[in-house]
């Protein structure tokens, strides 16, 4: 289940990736039920993000990026919907979704390259959120492709650690902008 890089010139997931925004009851084991279902039916997950939903302690929202080539989307949604704790599923086709992801990276720096790092950060619209003599921590909240690009640009620096959250998404309000 090694995910391919989530590249896409439009800043949106390629067609085989679908975003499912799943409203679930906040019950013990609900994540295990979802993960178990995907594992036993051979559905691939690219990323998964969970958080309490809309200020209501009864529900959480799980944002799952699925590989619609590992199984037909209809089958994934149909099986997911049978989980009793799943309340609602919204299928966000890439063009209908606003997606964001968070990237954190800590880089070792010295006087020789500190300026280069700052340039990359400024160009990407990222922020420096922690600094000391030997390292900086960079943060970007942006589209998945912006995160991809930043990750690429940081490759030339010595990375201590880099972590991305996986995407969260909401339906786009107006008609989709043409790519």
């Amino acid at each position, binding site marked *: 289940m090694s995910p391919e890089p989530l590249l896409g010139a439009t800043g949106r997931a390629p067609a085989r990736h679908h975003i499912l925004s799943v409203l679930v*009851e906040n019950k013990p084991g609900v994540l295990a039920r979802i993960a*178990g279902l995907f594992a036993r039916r051979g559905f691939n997950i690219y990323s998964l993000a969970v958080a309490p939903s809309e200020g209501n302690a009864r529900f959480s929202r799980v944002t799952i990026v699925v590989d619609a080539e590992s199984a037909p989307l*209809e*089958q994934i949604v149909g099986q997911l*919907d049978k989980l009793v704790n799943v*309340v609602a599923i919204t299928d966000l086709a890439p063009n209908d979704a606003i997606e964001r992801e968070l990237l954190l990276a800590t880089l070792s720096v010295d006087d020789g390259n500190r300026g280069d790092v700052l340039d990359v950060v400024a160009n990407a619209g990222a922020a420096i959120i922690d600094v000391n003599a030997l390292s900086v921590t960079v943060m970007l909240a942006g589209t998945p492709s912006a995160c991809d690009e930043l990750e690429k640009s940081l490759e030339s620096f010595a990375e201590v650690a880099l972590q991305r959250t996986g995407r969260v998404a909401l339906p786009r309000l107006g008609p989709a902008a043409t790519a």
Partner: protein
Amino acid sequence: MQLTGAQALIKSLEAEGVDTIFGLPGGAILPVYDPILDSSIRHILVRHEQGAGHMAEGYAQATGKAGVAMVTSGPGATNIVTPIANAHMDSTPLVVITGQVATASIGTDAFQECDITGITMGITKHNFLIQSAHEIPRVVAAAFHLATTGRPGPVLIDLPKDISQSKMEWWYPTTIEELDLPGYHPEVPLDEEAVALAVALIGASERPVLYVGGGTLKSRATLELRAFAERTKIPVVTTLMARGAFPDSHELHLGMPGMHGMYSAVTAIQKADLLISLGARFDDRVTGQISSFAAGAKVIHVDIDRAEFNKVRRADVALQTNVASALRALDAAKATPLNLDVWWKQIRTWQERYPLVYDEPTAEGPLLAQHVIKAIAAQAAPGTIVTAGVGQHQMWASQFWEFEEPGTWVNSGGAGTMGFGVPAAIGAKVGRPDRTVWCIDGDGCFQMTAQELVTARVEGIPIKVAIMNNAYLGMVRQWQEMFYEERYSEVYLSAELPDYVKWAEAMGCVGLRAHNLQEMHDVIEIANQVNDVPVVIDFRTHTAEKVFPMVAAGASNDDIIVHPLQRGDAR
């Protein structure tokens, strides 16, 4: 009214109308066994928890109500995992209650702790780990609602010991809302557009087949099926899970499709231009090689579970509803009558040329299981319930017994669980004490769960067990003969060991044996006269007999292998 959690559990089961629990106690479930003494519910003490699960399944399949089983934590819970998986595959409504270690001990590897909700997540419709005594009534009511509505299935309730001992103020939910199942909507409104499309497809068809699956029995749609079939004259096939949904004696019935199906049923599907699937799921044992399955047919797929649509076979029309309401809607549409004369003429030639056959049995034996099953059926009262193990004897029972009404065939289809037959027969007899219950078993299967005959004798449950003793794991032997160049590996069991007659007698049952035709007739007559204790008959059958027709695993249904007596004919 203040109750303990244990009392609340039993009172909740009473509120659900439960009359029987199959179970076996132990430490973690001990508190719940005390109020059973004061309850109207009958508890049947099994000898192994797998028996409790299969009994509950037999009870459920024979009555249409949820079967209930109760066991302790750890090994008690793991022993019932097989029946839960079996019920999941066959969509049998089951409520299984397991004891759990005290809440504070969960996660500490306490004595007899096991994560049974984790283990059964993938083989239950849903499961619950109870968090407080107050929620017991809600969880029990929800469990029965989930088990018996929509696509039925097993639901497990894990009850920690401290919660069964703690106090609660008695209440019971009276509305669906109180069950707190915001994500569960089993019934969806009928899609009128899909109905119209289906009616149009039916009207345009020349070679339609009604492909009837277990969902037809689950939605109690047999009357609707009969009305629809008789009005349209569309040929009917009933899968292994649907035997009894349409009378075998009916002229429109072609019998069972699939790996060991009737030639005419298999071939009619292959040549059909329209399959009307009613609560069936295109199982690989029915379809054979999927790419060549009914290759020229359009498909109308009726199922309550939308995840079945396009899972195996693309549906031209998907109708998400229960089979009964689908058939009512299709019938109401009164499509133009079909002229199926040419189709029926073709089907009748297949039926005439390839009926079910077997060699003439010799008077001195060995017996042939097919013939034994027909002899038992010939003497059985109408409405007799038949259960089976898994193997050749199961296929022969399905082929040679004539099922006329729903709930008379109880078997393990999707999972193929050896050992299902005896405990399922006990459960069926408990649910339908007015009916005769025969278990057609294999010698291998019998040895897996036979100890439950002690339960049957002690509890006064007079079932009849016919062992087709071919001294082999016969179905596996058949595959080794046909596909592994007769290299027999670990399939021989012995006809003499165990001595089934002595074993039956040791369990308080009547034990009988038959080697030849005369003895066969005699023991069947004796067995039919015994109505107070279980009877076990050791029928000595041919070791090398094989089940036909047969479609080899993964092969195309076009390459169906018929009985040797029928080969050589041009097809």
